[in-house]
């Protein structure tokens, strides 16, 4: 929700910045037609440009991503004991215990496989 708000800020700020650029160009061409000297932009264009710049900067700052905490233990502190002991590398799916079952069918031995050919 906050992210979409920031995206809206960025989009509106960009449009506003573009509009102020267009206004500045219009003002410049008006001065050129009426053969006046350029002394400075009107105050409203300046205010609009600077305000939209700050708005877009704030939006970009929030959209860029979250800062993570830098102390080394910060993220380990958040994990619980149950997940701490959970080591996926040591999972066992297949072991000798299944040979004790009554329905166990032993795999064909290597010697039998060789005799087939």
């Amino acid at each position, binding site marked *: 929700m906050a992210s979409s708000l920031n995206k809206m800020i960025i989009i509106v700020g960009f449009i506003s910045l573009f509009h102020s*650029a267009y206004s*500045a160009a219009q003002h410049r061409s008006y001065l050129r*037609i009426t053969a006046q000297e350029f002394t400075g932009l009107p105050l409203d264009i300046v205010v609009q440009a600077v305000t939209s710049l700050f708005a877009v900067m704030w939006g970009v*700052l929030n959209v860029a*991503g979250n*800062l993570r905490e830098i*102390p080394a*233990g910060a993220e380990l502190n958040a994990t619980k004991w149950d997940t701490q002991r959970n080591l996926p590398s040591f999972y066992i799916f297949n072991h000798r215990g299944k040979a004790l079952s009554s329905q166990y069918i032993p795999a064909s031995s290597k010697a039998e496989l060789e005799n087939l050919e």
Partner: protein
Amino acid sequence: MTTVVKTKDLKPEPAAYSEAALRNNGAVIEYCRTSMAALSGSTAGVLGLTSLYGFAFYIVSVVVLYIMFMVKTGPNWRKYHISRQALLTNSFFASLCTYVLFWTFIYGMVHVRKRSMCMACVCSARTEQQHTMQ
């Protein structure tokens, strides 16, 4: 005989930082800095700033970005940044290059480029001007 305690020996214990978090924060800050340089360069071009005013505007926008970082992290900035000063000065000149690039480009687009004007506008403006001169 007096014992001299060197201040060097009284350094605080080194703190351990998470490498991945540091790199992530650095990337976020770099992204913001680059965007800030491009955007403020465009704004400086729109405003038609020249010479030292443009560089002053760059410094102002760097400081504003720094203030925004401080506002975002709040009082516990130590959790996210090793040094507050590095936030202000890191890659200052690298972003300045981006800034100047956008500044000159947008300045040229807005203030220098001669756009084709409709003749009616030119004629009406000229006659208006002549009237005022008379």
